């Protein structure tokens, strides 16, 4: 098994689900044994319930999809009482995902999540393109100072590993990564969806009810690879990479560019067994290439 260590956690393999594409795992448990995953990253929750955006919330895009779910969730309490207990029976790691409208909500939500014994780590989602804030209606993670502010504040609440999940749409990803690291993040989850939209010429309407949303799937992979590579070269923060990973080869490319772990998102909708198949494919590649552990491949891109 390609065991890895990241952010102080030992994972049986480098494959996690990407937040928002896997619920809390229950539906996918009908397709495979969740214990075969490195970690389950749950759908982002917020302090209070959010109804989400009006439909349509999803649409096709060339080699990918658009979404504007709007962080629909029943709130952190519901998640803790109703969704989390299900994951107890699986031998895998669990990362909860938190978002908020302001620093106080981030702190409150992370505090509640990190206090749960089932939660091994918290991913701090500062990059949902369907939730904006501030004067320029930007995403939290588009500003290094905001990243620092949120991550420092949540850092004070827990010793459990924290992943900072950030947006690809920034001028300098290394500044964001550095801010996260300085503020005490244990890993960087990269990338969230790319802000995007689609148009239906026939009806002259946007494809999404929210007009704009986020692009994910194979279309974003080259963008994500570059961002991972940029961070790997300059900032000493472990990287959890994602963006268009459909198979083991995609995942291995991210590891070559410097990722320690990967997350599988949109692929779950195309192949419900994507996570386990990718984990098995990575294992096979390591065996065939006589690689002992992740460090034999991580960042070994020949340039």
């Amino acid at each position, binding site marked *: 098994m390609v065991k890895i260590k990241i952010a102080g956690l030992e994972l049986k393999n480098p494959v996690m689900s990407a937040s928002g594409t896997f619920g809390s795992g229950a539906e996918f448990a009908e397709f495979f044994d969740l214990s075969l995953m490195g970690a389950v990253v749950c759908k982002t929750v917020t302090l209070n319930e959010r109804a989400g955006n009006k*439909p349509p919330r*999803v*649409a096709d895009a060339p080699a990918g999809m658009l*979404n504007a779910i709007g962080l629909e969730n029943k709130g952190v309490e519901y998640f803790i009482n109703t969704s989390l207990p299900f994951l107890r029976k699986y031998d895998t790691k669990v990362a909860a995902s938190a978002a908020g409208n302001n620093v106080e909500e981030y702190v409150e939500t992370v505090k509640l999540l990190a206090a749960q014994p089932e939660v091994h780590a918290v991913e701090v989602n500062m990059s949902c393109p369907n939730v904006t804030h501030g004067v320029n209606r930007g995403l939290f993670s588009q500003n290094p100072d905001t990243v620092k502010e949120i991550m420092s504040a949540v850092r004070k609440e827990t010793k459990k590993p924290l992943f900072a999940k950030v947006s690809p749409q920034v001028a300098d990803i290394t500044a964001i990564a550095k801010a996260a690291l300085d503020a005490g993040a244990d890993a960087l989850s990269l990338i969230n969806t790319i802000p995007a939209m689609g148009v239906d010429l026939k009806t002259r309407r946007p494809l999404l009810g929210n007009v704009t949303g986020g692009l994910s799937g194979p279309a974003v992979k080259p963008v994500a690879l570059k961002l991972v590579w940029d961070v790997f070269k300059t900032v000493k923060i472990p990287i959890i990479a994602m963006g268009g990973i459909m198979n083991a080869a995609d995942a291995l490319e991210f590891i070559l560019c410097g990722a320690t772990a990967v997350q599988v998102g949109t692929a779950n909708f*195309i192949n419900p067994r994507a996570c386990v198949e990718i984990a098995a494919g990575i294992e096979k590649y390591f065996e065939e290439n006589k690689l002992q552990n992740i460090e034999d491949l991580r960042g070994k891109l020949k340039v």
Partner: protein
Amino acid sequence: MMKNFKAEIISNKEVNPDIFNLIFKAPELAAAAPGQFLEILCGADGVSGGPFLRRPFGVYNTDVKKGTAEILFKVLGQGTKNLSARKAGEILDIVGPLGSGFKIIDTPRPVIAGGGMGVAPLLLLAKILHEKKQKPIIFLGAKNKEELAAAEKFEKYGKVILTTDDGSAGEKCFLNIPLEKYLKENKNAVIYSCGPHPMLKCLAELGKKYKAAVQVSLEEKMACGLGVCRGCPVEVKNKDEKYKMVCKDGPVFPAEDVVW
């Protein structure tokens, strides 16, 4: 229980212009309930050369003995275009059966109402009502005769009343006209329906007016089909939450729960 499986195509016939009846091996769907649906990969390999996301299709028919199932679809976009080109012997990648289907009610007045391609999930329902010795009255409406692709198949299961927009088959009107006539004379009917949104909305109003229980099968753009992505909301009233998911909580809903 839902599964992800490969299914060999037995036949894919164009039954009317642009309308296809695809039959495939699927013992996995033996227990599929009327109103449940399948998510089918319609791109070449799910990544290149086709729509990326799976497409939902209502289960049109099943043959438990032969271990086969059918869908009926109209070519509308790239996904259905690709599917229409698939041939016998080729393999489909299917997730299903998904969602919760029609709730079958023991009633002396079962009514089926299908508009356009909305007939697809209703044939299996008609068959099952027939097996239960209920005698459904079946209203089928479409733009024209060609689009009433499944009308004959329904005839074995109950009395069929046709309407078309152009009068090329049945009465020239929307199906709510003869349906309303029926409801006036038959109180406490149970209506199972699927079709375009305006039609379903109209049936919801008729249901209220004539005290008929209306079940509607809804459509919405989907990604996962499993209830995890929260991508397919329908706004509901008098519930704890603002939205329910068409893929998991539906696709069939009581008409009175839906915000029209």
